[in-house]
């Protein structure tokens, strides 16, 4: 083979490679990573299923907003410490449930990221109440929000109840957390080929053997996209079910009760809101469900509460049974504004 021929063949095959990439990207894959400001959910990105995309634009029409910490904020009613749910990662209209809470109950709410420190949420809260920021803010409530699948990992851990602010370094209250930003993609990417592969594999397996997203059928129309009978959920909804044991749930309960007592000493009420995993919420509606079912909420209900417990599974199951659709986005692990509006009703008994 001559060098000239080599170059010609290489150019030819590269062109053959580029063309389908261009086509697949423009026809399909780009919808999963929209660049027009609209949001497509995380499960759509994991599964490369553009048929579940529930396209939405972010907006905050609620008149009262929650806030984030700055040095000139004085007293506050509630501090929220949470994960992506508390950072509005579901997107869409009124993506922050804190805004809805703030509006409905006329509360000043601060979303606080406690980064660094001991990387243990409870210990970080114990550190926080020793800081000058706490003295300045003096909240009446601290709301701990966590997705169900990580709740045991986060709250069943051993806690150093005597932790001192002098011993801990690097508790960072002002820094914003680094949320994974969806990178801008060009038309040449692995996603195009995953799109093709998954179109085939999802026909044979609920998570296409490799995907982080499960796609299963529902026995009734619970969503408004497509047939409304497709459920997508994150693989860790299943993986972390076994973490809920008698011992671990007791540890969660003991730790939260202890934390509640410590917070009451400084005039703060603890609210714990585990956000039910999407799979767990819709598990009873999955056709031919052979997967394990979570008992996190059922087991936690049997423990004693010195804190205020927001039972999101009970609240949302009730709404489901009343026929409310789109409590979660079809294409996302997060609840929609419909779901969060349902949940915040339960705060009424607290703030009457």
């Amino acid at each position, binding site marked *: *083979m*001559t*060098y*000239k*021929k*080599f*170059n010609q*063949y*290489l150019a030819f*095959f*590269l062109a053959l*490679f580029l063309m389908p990439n261009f086509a697949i990207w423009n026809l399909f894959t780009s919808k999963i990573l929209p660049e027009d400001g609209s949001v497509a959910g995380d499960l759509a990105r994991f599964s490369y299923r553009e048929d579940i995309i529930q396209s939405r634009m972010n907006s905050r029409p609620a008149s009262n907003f929650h806030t984030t910490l700055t040095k000139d904020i004085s007293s506050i009613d509630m501090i929220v410490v949470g994960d992506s749910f508390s950072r509005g990662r579901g997107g869409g209209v009124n993506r922050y449930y804190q805004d809805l809470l703030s509006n409905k109950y006329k509360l000043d709410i601060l979303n606080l990221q406690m980064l*660094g420190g001991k990387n243990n949420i409870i210990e970080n809260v114990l550190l926080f109440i020793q800081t000058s920021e706490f003295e300045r803010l003096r909240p009446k409530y601290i709301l701990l929000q966590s997705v169900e699948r990580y709740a045991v990992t986060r709250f069943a851990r051993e806690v150093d109840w005597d932790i001192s602010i002098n011993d801990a*370094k*690097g508790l960072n209250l002002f820094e914003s957390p680094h949320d994974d930003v969806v*990178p*801008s*993609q*060009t038309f*040449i*990417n*692995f996603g195009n*080929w995953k799109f093709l592969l998954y179109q085939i594999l999802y026909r044979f397996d609920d998570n296409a053997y490799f995907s982080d997203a499960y796609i299963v059928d529902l026995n009734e129309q619970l969503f408004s996209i497509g047939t409304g009978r497709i459920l997508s959920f994150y693989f860790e909804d299943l993986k972390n079910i076994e973490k809920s044991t008698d011992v671990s749930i007791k540890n969660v309960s003991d730790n939260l009760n202890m934390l509640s007592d410590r917070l009451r000493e400084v005039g703060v009420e603890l609210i714990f809101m585990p956000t039910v995993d999407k799979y767990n919420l819709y598990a009873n509606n999955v056709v031919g469900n052979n997967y394990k079912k979570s008992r996190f909420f059922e087991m936690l209900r049997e423990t004693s509460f010195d804190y205020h417990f927001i039972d999101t599974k009970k609240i949302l199951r009730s709404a489901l049974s009343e026929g409310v659709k789109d409590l979660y986005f079809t294409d996302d692990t997060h609840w929609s504004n419909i779901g969060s509006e349902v949940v915040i009703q339960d705060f009424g008994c607290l703030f009457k």
Partner: protein
Amino acid sequence: MLFNSFTFVFFFLPIVFGIYFFLNRFRLTLLSKGFLVLSSLFFYSWWNILYLPLIIFSMIFNFSVGRELGRVVGFKSKKLLLTMGVISNLALLGYFKYSDFLISNINFVFDSSVSLLNLTLPLAISFFTFQQIAYLVDSYRGEVNEVDLLNYSLFVTFFPQLIAGPIVHHSEMMPQFVRHRTKVLSSKNVTLGIFVFAIGLFKKVVIADTFAVWASTGFDVADKLYFIEAWITSLSYTFQLYFDFSGYADMAIGIALMFNIRLPINFNSPYKSLDIQQFWRSWHMTLSRFLRDYIYIPLGGNRTSELKTQSNLLITFMLGGVWHGAGWTFIVWGVMHGLALVVHRVWQKGKFRLNKFFAWFVTFNFVNIAWVFFRATSFDDAIKVLRGMFLLEGINLPRVLEERLSHYPFIEFSGFLSQVKGDMATFVWLFVGLFVVTVLPNTEKLRESFKPSVIRLVFIFAILTYAMMSMNKSTEFLYFNF
């Protein structure tokens, strides 16, 4: 503009390549050179056009001084002119790169609070400054005399080597532009250029960027590191730096080759070295050459007393450390290597011998440990990693071993590898990295033995397409900060 970006690969390079050879085809040599210079300046200013006047000013200044050095006759006048030229270049470099370092040290010593200047370091300033200092010295020695500003501009700005080297001598590059054959498109050089470029791209966006995750997390995020995580951190950086920088060098050499220009190689399997001298003869070779020819030898080199030779080595490598960065950790890194070379000299004089494997092991681990200082942004971070590497923070093992090993006091079982965001694949990557750097032939060897064939076509196609798909997150090269 980065080599590993779609803008460069699909727009800049093909357009510049096409127009350059098109102009040469019609023997419009002056125009083609001018076009190449303008393209290179465009390439440079893509980063920030505000710094374009700086490189242009630097070019014109050094060209003028170089030309005067060719004209001036008296020894003293020549020396004065050279001194002025070198000092001016170093002053420019010093102003942008070392002002804040100097100020913060003055503040520390005198307990003052002089404000930092917070200057942005102009892209490639260390490289084009050193390249031009080498040119001035060569002009002083009568080895070179460029009288054409366009040629000189091309020498400085030729885009494949502009941003991060190799540091090229005028006599290495410019005679190639004069030759007729250089102006004719060569299928062979295009093939070899693409081959070398593809390997470099793959090294950078696939291999180096994979190791970057563990290295960055370990150095910058973790507040302490257990034994295994500390070694993963340091080894990941050792591999990241090599694959990133040698990948860049490969891309530079490959692109230049497409233009029929041979740049000097910068890496010759440095991690296969059996001693530190061999390491410095195969790592960042053009910088080593500069340090040797323009610092070590003028200081007296090894043609003086043993003590003076050793101090020359220490000074040279301390300055090498300073060149890399304005920080004490860089100086410590440089001094470490200087000391290692001194020890090596003594070892050689004593005619001691080490088993080959042991020699490699010691050399590789010394280099690995020294990189900790190179990478760490502070001594605290360096100490953090070293404490972990030397078992001072204990070992963290997977939970499955807890039942058997929990009675040992220095073993913990919390989140194995979570400090570096690693998993079992990390070990596979480290093994692969080690295998590649110690066993496989380097890019230059592969290029030398290249012959067009179906297998090589498939190979280039595979690594090029994989690398292109991995290119989406445009990450800067490590050496962009120099």
